[in-house]
């Protein structure tokens, strides 16, 4: 058990995970990750090649080169850094590179804001990266380790983003149960590239000149092949569902820790008539509210925390929400001009064709680090109960915590 903040927990996990190449550019609140990794490398505790890129765009580009060569790679960023990587994120997944990247969620400029919200990672939800949101430092540690196994699985071969809330989790010290080095090393092992068959030979999917045939990465596609390449990526995303679950369960066996079924984590949903859906650290506050309500005799509120956002758990959600009359979806990112935030939209989409049709209210909160308190959550609960009582859909997205 170590006292680590979220960033330190991530760095510790990377240190244990047989990573070969790290290239990163600092940005608050990810900086502790890169600083800690530099310390580990300088002390010889982490035998990775560590480079300070001169921008995030170059950082992720270096990672592309390194991963294509066959190395296990890691990087981290936040907000504008992630936005600067945007172009390359799509290329990473198109080249089927199992890169792992920690995103310390922070609001996108402007105005410039270093505090947390999910606008940065939500903006990348279509880049074909697996996206997992962590509630706390412990989960961030556990998930980084799992991420290498998920991405590198030969049925998947997709990059993985591991999210943790900036400052709230990244800079807050927690008790983190870390596994022994050997246990982690045996779990992640070393990267074994997948094989591909071209020109009549089966070779590792890498730039290794010692391969029997040389591979070309990153050709020009015309209208006659691009669609097929994208369809292959979609297939990989679908295949990743089973792998995410399996890796989560396998890790639970060696660590004793699990997070629901790997996709969603439920809290007090057995008797729930109302449910909150949210991501990351706010889930902790919601759990506190639920405990408080139960202590006052009201156990009708439950929580469904979405852990894996990509691929989206559209099958798990309806099952988890059976019997629920009203759902409050909390989005910590806006979607200007859309009807509600991204989580709200994907939840409604998942439920529309199912047999489960509770009232679904959308709430946008916490932008730019605006705090979400128990009182505010309670007011959302009251609002949700009101909707259900009225028997009519709310048809209005609330901005909770903004001053009028």
């Amino acid at each position: 058990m170590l006292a680590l903040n979220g960033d330190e927990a991530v760095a510790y996990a990377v240190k244990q995970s047989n990573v070969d190449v790290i290239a990163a550019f600092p940005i608050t609140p990810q900086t502790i990750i890169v600083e800690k990794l530099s310390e580990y490398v300088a002390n010889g505790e982490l035998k990775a090649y560590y480079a300070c890129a001169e921008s995030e765009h170059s950082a992720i580009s270096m990672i592309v080169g390194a991963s294509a060569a066959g190395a296990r790679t890691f990087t981290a960023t936040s907000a504008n850094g992630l936005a600067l990587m945007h172009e390359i994120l799509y290329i990473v997944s198109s080249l089927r590179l199992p890169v792992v990247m920690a995103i310390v969620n922070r609001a996108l400029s402007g105005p410039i804001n270093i505090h947390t919200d999910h606008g940065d990672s939500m903006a990348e939800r279509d880049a074909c990266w697996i996206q997992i949101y962590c509630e706390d430092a412990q989960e961030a540690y556990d998930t980084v380790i799992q991420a290498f196994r998920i991405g590198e699985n030969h049925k998947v071969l997709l990059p993985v983003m591991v999210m943790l809330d900036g400052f709230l989790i990244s800079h807050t010290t927690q008790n983190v149960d870390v596994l022994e080095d050997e246990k982690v090393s045996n779990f992640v092992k070393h990267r074994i590239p997948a094989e591909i068959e071209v020109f009549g030979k089966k070779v590792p999917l890498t730039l290794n000149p010692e391969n029997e045939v040389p591979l070309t990465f990153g050709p020009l596609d015309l209208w006659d092949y691009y669609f097929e390449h994208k369809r292959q990526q979609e297939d990989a995303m679908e295949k990743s569902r089973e792998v995410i679950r399996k890796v989560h369960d396998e890790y639970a066996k060696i660590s004793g820790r699990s997070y629901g079924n790997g996709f969603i984590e439920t809290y007090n949903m057995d008797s729930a008539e109302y449910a909150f859906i949210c991501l990351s650290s706010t889930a902790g506050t919601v759990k506190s509210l639920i405990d408080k309500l139960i202590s006052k005799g009201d156990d009708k509120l439950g929580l469904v925390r979405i852990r894996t956002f990509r691929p989206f758990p559209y099958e798990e959600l309806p099952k988890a929400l059976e019997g629920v009359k009203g759902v409050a979806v909390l989005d910590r990112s806006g979607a200007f001009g859309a009807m509600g935030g991204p989580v709200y939209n994907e939840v409604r989409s998942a439920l529309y064709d199912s047999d489960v049709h509770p009232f679904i209210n959308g709430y946008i909160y916490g932008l730019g680090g605006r705090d979400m308190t128990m009182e505010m959550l309670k007011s959302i609960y009251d609002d949700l109960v009101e909707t259900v009582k009225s028997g009519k859909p709310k048809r209005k997205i609330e901005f909770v915590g903004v001053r009028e």
Partner: protein
Amino acid sequence: MSEDLAKPGWKQIPIAGVPFKKATEYHTGDWRTFKPVIDQSKCTKCLTCWIFCPDDSIVWDGNTVQVDYRYCKGCGICAEMCPVKAITMVKEE
């Protein structure tokens, strides 16, 4: 385009966008309007044409200099640079 429908599907092509055909299967010789003809009696085998061919279409077999007409695009650099004017550009029929 109907030719596109005949091409392999997403389950058949390699992943990660890795090309599965060699460019040497693509005969750029079709592009030509003029083709270089080497007068072997004048050729001193200096290999200047080989040096300057953008398409690796001058072939030296250890004995003679030949043009690989499968790929030659007819740019004419070889004819222009030959120090003994052993190459003429002839219009394709």
